[in-house]
């Protein structure tokens, strides 16, 4: 069961504040959804490999290493053009023209 304390802890980790109303709703929803997910425990997966992504599966023999199977995705480590500075900054909420400006990070 997810507790109110868990909701606060997770909201902190996720950088969400959440109103008291949202927290109450979140507690109810998380418990309902995670309760449904408990059914995964009906399966014995002790000997099953976890699968993080499908790219590894493209018709590649199982004994080929990940490095070889995904060799096509490699490229030379060379400088290439990237987004110009000005364009990269163009959506910034606050900038001094060179850097992104943010509220004070360190108290002194």
């Amino acid at each position, binding site marked *: 069961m997810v507790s109110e304390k868990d909701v606060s802890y*997770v909201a902190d980790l996720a950088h969400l504040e959440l109103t008291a109303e949202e927290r109450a709703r979140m507690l109810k929803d998380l418990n309902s959804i995670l309760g*449904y997910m408990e059914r995964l425990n009906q399966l014995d997966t002790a000997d099953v490999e976890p699968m993080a992504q499908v790219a590894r599966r493209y*018709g590649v023999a199982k004994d080929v290493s990940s490095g070889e199977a995904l060799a096509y995705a490699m490229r030379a480590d060379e400088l290439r053009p990237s987004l110009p500075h000005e364009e990269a900054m163009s959506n910034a909420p606050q900038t001094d023209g060179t850097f992104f400006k943010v509220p004070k990070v360190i108290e002194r």
Partner: protein
Amino acid sequence: MNLEMLTVDAARTAVLEKQTTAMALVDAFYQKIEAEDPAIGAYLTLCKERAHRQAERVDALADKGDALPPLAGVPVAIKDVLTTKGVRTTAGSKILGNFIAPYDATAVARLEIAGAIVLGKTNCDEFAMGSSNENSGFHPVKNPRDHSRVPGGSSGGSAAVVAAGTAVASLGSDTGGSIRQPGAFCGVVGLKPTYGRVSRYGLIAFASSLDHVGPFGKTVKDVALILRHMAGRDPMDSTSADLPVPDYASEIGQPVTGLRIGVPKEYFGEGLDPEVRASVEAGIQELAKAGCEIVTVSLLHTEYAIPTYYLIATAEASSNLARFDGVRYGLRAKEAKTLAEMYRKTRDAGFGTEVKRRIMLGTYALSAGYYDAYYLKAQKVRSLLAHDFDEAFAKVDVIATPTTPTPAFKLGEKADDPLAMYLADIYTVTANLVGVPGITVPCGTSKEGLPIGMQILGRHFDEATLLKTAHVVEHALA
């Protein structure tokens, strides 16, 4: 010219044969959008300047008598999760309400190179999280076939514009059914390609191992044409596959004699609406009549797909959406005194309820003490689901199922029950977990006149067989 019936080929031919100009065609679509879209709400942003520039280019080629590119003059709409340079790109979220993308998504750029004209950006559930389009940060979309019902989600706007005839074709994204489910609800064709078939560069990430870009069209041939011109290796997406792109449209109308169609019994059980079942079974009968062999198969772990999907998708989302912090782009809360407070207030103001719920769920599933029990467990069950498909595809060439358990539901019907909404994705999420391609094709209508879709799933990178099979159903039931 009847815009509602216009297909990809017909649009290009009309420009090629000088029955119209690309410019006149684009303006006719804008007129129709301005007259009819306000009642549906499918478009968030129109990009007239960009569309007119592209129409000029196409018309200049036509005037010179040069060979026209394959999608020349075809007016398309783009789901607002794909970036469009110089055009507002919101992902359906207030947090990106004023974001002007600095570059084009590869899929969009490739369609334009092929001559297509981008009319505008379509509404969707916020960050593609939802199955009804009611989670849009701006306004919901109505189903063009029945305005009291949802168009499906998350690519509800992209399905609706094709159904309403306010674009010839469109692009959507599909992380757990977000192309196929709204395709079925709106009565259009929608294709989720194989993972790696179409570049994700410029697709605003929801769950990177599950996200796909794919087309909507009025016909199977239209989605085949669109897919052909956006698929293929892209150095900007390391997961895009280095495999040749076939001429998919040439498969349309090819015989399907001897093709083995798998029918998984787990997809026809409890919870399936009787009218949906009858229509899908009728579609399968048509395949049998066309000479296919119908084979019962088992996808044993189907009942575990929803919990597996929602654990993996939310875990990846909680990580992907960490980038929305008010520093580099998008909304920033004004009254914050410290950096941490600025993050929290920005995210609180910018994200809607469902996005916050999924960030919370994913953060919880990844947090210390719960990682093994939830996230790792789900990754292991994902392997079991992949194994189910490996076994099935050893026996059959494609798998036929319903796309959704019911036809389009009413606006508001499931809005307060997130779990009920998640369960509506039961037939579509597995293809994302496993990476196989899937298409929805209309196969009938309910007594109330609502469209019903049949889903066809295929082997990795075998979109050709998928399209050929879907065309048989489309042709027989049209």
